[in-house]
């Protein structure tokens, strides 16, 4: 079923999402409805745009209420009334469901992450005209005969000028209907995320859970910022292999660790599929920081510095805590790549650290 309001609603959503009418962004309000889930009160975000009005400042004068209370007792809430037409006063029970988009937005605001701006040449915007509507003005070549006829018929019936026995319909100027078009802009900002994970014997289920969560949020945030996004998953122990998403999060292997193997494969993937002049490339490596040899760690840094960092948007290294191993890789990176702007490292020991880690990864807005 189509409702007229849908169009207004769409428009509002687009403004809220910042796609159009940037001038209204500063009037955004973050209201909320308070609900209950089980024992917990939860809030459902209700976005609004409040056009400025001349109005009174903070009403420190309070209001009027009724009920049993002593002077000094707090009353929660301010004066309010039901909307026009009689909405029933709300009862505060509910459960919430927030769309992933909204979550990512909230994430963005909570973490104060800047929106990632696709770089110049990486943005290809294609324009397309769509004939999607009808309007009452336009060039004659676009006249919609059927609709014009219908409008004329309707007018004549209303005016009583229509004679079913002698059905002559004469459209006048106001009856004419024309096809109208809308120019649709299709931003094409392509991005690829390459997730690499160490699956050697030292990475347990707990570590993988952390990686999974972190990767999920990275994915959500980047998808929020780019239209066309691709993900590639690489797992490695001493050898590296490209796998699908599901395998990436479930696979468990044994054996030693050779991080350079993953970087080699990543480089091969980039070279064959993702031309850096057209793609925003994000690489994330998750590991417990235990590499087979110091020389391999240095080899990794050399490879990053020479073959990858100049071309990609960001290399993120996330080290999860593990009971085994030295956890030294992060130090090697710091030692060799400290001067590189697009290298970000973080440590995640518990779930609570994920928040900070995301912040570390994206604050720069690369």
């Amino acid at each position, binding site marked *: 079923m189509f409702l007229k309001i849908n169009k207004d609603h769409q428009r509002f959503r687009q403004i809220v999402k910042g796609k159009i009418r940037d001038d209204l962004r500063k009037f955004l309000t973050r209201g909320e409805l308070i609900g209950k889930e089980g024992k917990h009160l939860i809030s459902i975000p209700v976005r609004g745009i409040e056009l400025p009005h001349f109005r009174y400042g903070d009403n420190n004068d309070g*209001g009027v209420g009724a009920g049993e209370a002593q002077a000094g007792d707090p*009353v929660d809430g301010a004066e309010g009334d039901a909307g026009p037409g*009689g909405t029933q006063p709300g009862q505060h029970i509910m459960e919430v469901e927030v769309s992933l988009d909204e979550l990512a937005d909230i994430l963005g605001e909570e973490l104060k992450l800047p929106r990632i701006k696709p770089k110049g040449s990486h943005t290809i915007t294609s324009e397309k005209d769509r004939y999607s509507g009808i309007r009452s003005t336009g060039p004659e070549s676009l006249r919609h005969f059927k609709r014009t006829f219908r409008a004329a018929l309707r007018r004549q019936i209303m005016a009583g000028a229509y004679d079913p026995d002698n059905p002559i319909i004469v459209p006048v100027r106001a009856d004419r209907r024309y096809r109208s078009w809308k120019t649709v802009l299709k931003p094409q900002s392509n991005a690829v995320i390459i997730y690499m994970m160490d699956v050697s014997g030292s990475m347990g289920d707990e570590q993988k859970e952390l990686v999974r969560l972190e990767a999920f949020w990275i994915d959500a945030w980047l998808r929020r910022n780019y239209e066309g996004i691709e993900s590639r998953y690489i797992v490695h122990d001493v050898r590296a292999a490209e796998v699908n998403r599901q395998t990436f999060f479930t696979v468990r292997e044994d054996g030693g660790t050779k991080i350079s193997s993953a970087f080699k494969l990543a480089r091969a993937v980039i070279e064959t599929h993702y031309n850096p002049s057209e793609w925003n490339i994000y690489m994330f490596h998750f590991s417990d920081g235990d590499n087979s040899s110091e020389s391999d760690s240095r080899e990794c840094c050399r490879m990053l510095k020479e073959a990858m960092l100049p071309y990609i948007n960001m290399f993120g290294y996330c080290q999860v805590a593990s009971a085994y191993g030295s956890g030294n890789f992060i130090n090697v990176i710091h030692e060799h790549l400290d001067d590189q702007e697009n290298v970000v490292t973080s440590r995640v020991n518990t779930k609570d650290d994920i928040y900070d880690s995301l912040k570390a990864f994206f604050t720069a807005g690369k």
Partner: protein
Amino acid sequence: MGSVPLRPELVRYAKEIADIAAEKGLDFFETRFEMVDFDTMQEIAAYGGFPQRYPHWRFGMEYERLRKQHVYGLGKIYEMVINNDPCYAYLLSDNALVDQKLVMAHVYAHCDFFKNNYWFSKTNRKMMDEMANHATRIRRHIDRYGYDRVERFIDICASLDNLIDPHQPFMQRGAPRDEPTRSVAPEREVERDIVRYKSKPYMEAWINPPAATSKQRQNLLAQREKKRHKHPPEPVRDVLQFMLENAPLEDWEADILSMIREEAYYFAPQGQTKIMNEGWATFWHSRLMTTRILKDDELITYADHHSGTVHMPPGQINPYKIGVELFRDIEERWNKGRFGKEYDECRSMEEKRKWDTKLGKGMEKVFEVRRIYNDVMFIDEFLTQDFVDRFRMYHYRYDPSTRRMVVVSRDYEKIKQQLLFMLTNHAQPYLYVLDGNYSNRGELYLGHKHHGVDLDIKYAVETLKNVQRIWRRPVHLQALINDEMVLFSYDGEQSQQQKIHADMPPPAHAV
């Protein structure tokens, strides 16, 4: 679409309830009920009750809020009724029968209120059509000038839609525009005002020396001249009207501004009579339902839903509850003669409690009240000490030390004063055009009339920008902020605010 014809059974009930209501003295426009589903109900509610409105994201925003509220079970719309002749009312298709009856009884009382309350008397009773016309006109402007441009202009107008004068429909402010000029020529009027001492003709030149007379004449003429150049001749509260007449608007812009102004005037009485209107409808639905309409097996459901409607959470004023209780109180007082000098001066509580003169004028009085009062007058006159005590009303305010709203007192005067302040001008500040040609540079000068509460500075600055976008020349707003007169200005590029000091040119009028 979402609207289906009424079931025959409901048509029968509607008729029955209308008859009962009419029998009780309610007098309403013909009322048309339409059955709609949730989606349609929310759409119409988002459009302020009208099935046809112009496209604007504001309505989409309201729709989203209503939908979320409904989806999460935080409240639902039971009924909606439009002040129009015929009256339109919407019923929700999946409400139970008893709810539909309740809504019908409620709606007939609303219609009666629309038709008979004085404050509604100047509203357009064909607003349904008018709104649809507005929609068509705005769509046409969109076709001509583009969606974005029209939408931006609507945003500007909507941000100023409280700059109207709700009392204006009831009086003629200033002189009508095409009034013939006064009959006496200004020169002769001036001659009359010149002070001359009585003298014999031959002494005239000495007692009233020509030089002094001519100086007086010049002064008077100069004064007149100054006055004549005042524009507007007196402060104007209908800022929108003033801008419509004087701002350099394009035709389509003026058209949009005039429509938004008209809609603001249409909605104004609903803000002025919220408590009374809802109180009146509740008063009648409860009376009609409990005395005539309810069947035995519907009683529990009715009681449940009715109590939901009049539920008043702590710290809030539910207009349904306050309204209905005041009407009931009025009915009782006038039935028992509990008013006037004798009753007020009676000092014995016992006597007062039993007071009953068998006057029996309760019904007559409530009908009179619904005819001529609005919320401010209603509270001012009928909110008694007794009532405040009975409903344990209190006054609360912000406590900076606990950062919560706390109860401060149960003082009757204070409570009443607070309520009246909240209701006066629908809690909107009073703004006037003080000068349409400030310092003779075609600048607009607005002034805020201070009633104890300052304007919100952040909002004022932003709103002033919108005023400028219509006026095009620089605009100013004078307002009392923290006990200091401040002048906010915006010239199209830069906002500034400064304290008002003596050597700044004054506007044509003081606030």
